């Protein structure tokens, strides 16, 4: 791929989108995990959490390009992207297996390291999938993710909140890249390389449709979140002691 080919620019756009989707809220997760720590420790935890998120991406990218040549790993990576894409469309889960905001430094660090690992892994696989084999694009994806992680969260959250279509489009894109990646696995290529149509793009289309359809269907079956059901939610209601205390 070079600058003049449309594929290059499509891949570039995909990578930007992936970085925004999968890197934009990392800072939020890290901040949430460390919010119960004392102020000084919290700042350190956030700093090292962000540092870890970026460092892990650098390390993982370095290995990802090699690892993805191993049979089966593209299938696994592709399935991970499909799963993330579906997850993107589902409402917030009510479950219990979540990161806890630990009030101990060690607890917060454990949480942040785990979250960093998952968040970096899906971002790196997404970049590698979109960049196909272009090292330049991979490096671009890595560099672009850094400012997104550090400064981007407010912008990204506003964007997704203001334009919900971004989420639908993002889920479709993850399905597209995941689907394409599965078809590119060393195990699959020998069976599909002689087909009249491109297995990569057919699989990408199927992946995108699969993610959007299944995600939408599951979301429609999921219980509605509390806030949507109750209309206007006032988290300060009922007027509690603060109101009375405040009376002259």
């Amino acid at each position: 791929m070079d600058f003049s080919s449309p594929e290059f620019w499509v891949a570039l756009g995909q990578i930007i989108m992936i970085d925004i989707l999968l890197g934009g809220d990392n800072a939020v997760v890290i901040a949430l995990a460390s919010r119960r720590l004392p102020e000084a420790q919290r700042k350190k935890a956030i700093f090292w959490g962000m540092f870890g998120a970026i460092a892990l991406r650098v390390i993982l990218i370095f290995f990802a390009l090699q690892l993805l040549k191993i049979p089966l790993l593209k299938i696994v990576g592709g399935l991970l992207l499909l799963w993330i894409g579906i997850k993107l469309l589902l409402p917030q889960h009510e479950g219990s297996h979540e990161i806890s905001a630990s009030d101990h430094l060690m607890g917060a660090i454990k949480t942040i390291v785990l979250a960093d690992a998952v968040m970096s892994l899906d971002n790196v696989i997404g970049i590698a999938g979109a960049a196909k084999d272009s090292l330049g694009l991979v490096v671009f994806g890595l560099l672009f993710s850094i400012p997104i992680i550090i400064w981007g969260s407010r912008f990204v959250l506003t964007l997704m909140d203001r334009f919900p279509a971004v989420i639908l489009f993002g889920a479709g894109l993850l399905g597209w890249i995941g689907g394409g990646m599965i078809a590119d696995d060393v195990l699959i290529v020998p069976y599909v390389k002689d087909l009249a149509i491109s297995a990569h793009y057919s699989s990408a289309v199927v992946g995108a449709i699969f993610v959007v359809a299944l995600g939408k269907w599951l979301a429609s079956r999921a219980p509605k979140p509390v806030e949507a059901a109750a209309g206007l939610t006032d988290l300060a209601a009922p007027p509690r002691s603060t109101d009375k205390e405040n009376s002259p």
Partner: protein
Amino acid sequence: MSVFLIPVDGSEYSMRAIDYVIDRVKQNPSEHRVHVLNVQMPLVGVNVKLFVSAESLQEIYREEGEKILASVLEKLKNAKISATPHIGVGDASQVIIDFGKEVKASEIVMGSHGRGALAGALMGSVAQKVVHLSDIPVILLK
């Protein structure tokens, strides 16, 4: 009687809105109603979905909102003005307009700029949208 709705985000501009309302209300506070509202941005990212449950999100919105409202309420209390705190979640301008209707506000008083200058510059500020969409008179403090 005036019913003031003051959306606040902890920024200097929103403090000016508080000062303005204090100025207008302090002569006869009992004749007015003051509502202060903080709107929390929904944390909608996929990683947040993976790692944080809906309940703790609600708790986070509440805590963050209370943090911002605390200094505002303190300021009003020092001026001997009683105010009702509200915390909403969502697209700030829309939530402000909805609360305006809900509390039957006669005026919405807010800062012309808030936090999130970058997002505001790229996607339009909250104040702009409120002025544009609200049926209730809006006073912007610069």
